[in-house]
């Protein structure tokens, strides 16, 4: 039996493993236990960024211009809806569809490609949990306590206990 379990385990976690690392920087403003403003910045690792910059920065001016922004949004960022933007938002113990991100902006900072976007939704801090991770495990989402900026509440960052991929959980107290 152990033999079968071991192989089923290997079988399931077969071929994905993180190749891209994204640091998640959440900034959340809380008022009366309700989240008023939810803003995320994703910073990709330098090696992945070098590939993306080569494709995104068409005029090689070291900046992401308006047309380039649009291209990234349409061809890269929007497609992440299929992956729920690597973020599961659990409200009242139910995983919800990721709300349509607003005010998307891509920029280059310290040779890294960064995505900045907001969620326009008022959420109760006691009934909401954010889980960051890629179920395919091709991307590793990295969240540290020092990456969070919470105004009006306290962030609690913990490991996300999944069987086949690794992630982080953010709760507000």
């Amino acid at each position: 039996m152990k033999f079968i379990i071991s192989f089923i385990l290997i079988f399931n976690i077969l071929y994905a493993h993180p190749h891209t690392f994204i640091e998640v920087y959440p900034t959340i403003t809380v008022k009366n236990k309700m989240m008023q403003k939810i803003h995320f910045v994703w910073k990709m690792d330098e090696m992945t960024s070098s590939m993306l910059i080569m494709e995104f920065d068409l005029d090689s001016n070291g900046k992401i211009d308006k047309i380039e922004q649009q291209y990234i949004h349409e061809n890269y960022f929007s497609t992440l809806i299929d992956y729920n933007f690597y973020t599961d938002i659990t409200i009242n113990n139910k995983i919800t569809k990721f709300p349509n991100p607003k005010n998307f902006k891509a920029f280059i900072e310290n040779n890294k490609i960064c995505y900045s976007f907001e969620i326009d939704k008022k959420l109760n801090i006691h009934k909401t949990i954010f889980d960051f991770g890629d179920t395919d495990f091709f991307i590793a989402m990295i969240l540290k306590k020092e990456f969070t900026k919470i105004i009006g509440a306290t962030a609690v960052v913990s490991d996300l206990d999944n069987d086949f991929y690794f992630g982080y959980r953010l709760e507000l107290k």
Partner: protein
Amino acid sequence: MSELYNHLLKQIVTFQYQLNSYISTTIRNLNDENILSTSLLVLGIAFLYGLIHAAGPGHGKALVAFYFVSNKSNYKKAFKMGYMISVIHAISALIFTFGIFYILKTMFRKNFNEMSGIAMQVSAVMIIFVGLYLIYEAYKSKKVKELEIKPSSKSEYAVAFSAGIVPCPGVMTIVLFCIILKQYLLGILAAITMSIGMGLTISVAGILSILFSKKAGSFLDTKGYILEIFGGLLIFLLGIFLFTSVGHK
């Protein structure tokens, strides 16, 4: 078990995250004055990165494990298999990276994703055939009552090639990063050292499954063909799983 596995996964991710950042910073700091020491440092980190990177899910460890658990073999063969996979893995990554970079230049990532998907499907079909071949061999050996079955080197090469043909995105990323910074030789050497690290980890997967087979020794001596058919079947299913997974992406 799940908690232990999750902890292990966290460590693998954390190490890779740190090494990934360290390797890119080190390559970027390369200059005429520190070229030798920094290059050696990069190669050292690349070896370590390969070792840990291959410990995560993937890289044909399951295939190697299935193969050795169902075929009597020795540790030397496990090392040979591990290194064959990693060498093919690295060559494939180098060809893909240099090819795509110089032929297509732009749309690198998109093309890489597409080509990687095609390579994965080719690999999956090959794995299916390897599984069918192993089942056939086991059935044949049962018929002629050959209890001492030696896996043919043909099937070993087939297993290594099936697993290795998918280029490792980890190796590709480092090579491409070096190309962008015009450190071509360092890119090739980093791919080689990373592959040496990966080969070691894949070999360990083979050795562990040989150990397992040895524990089931008496069973193997009498009803070995059942385990061989089971191993072949697992490899076959592995191929089907890979093929359908890639098709869904």
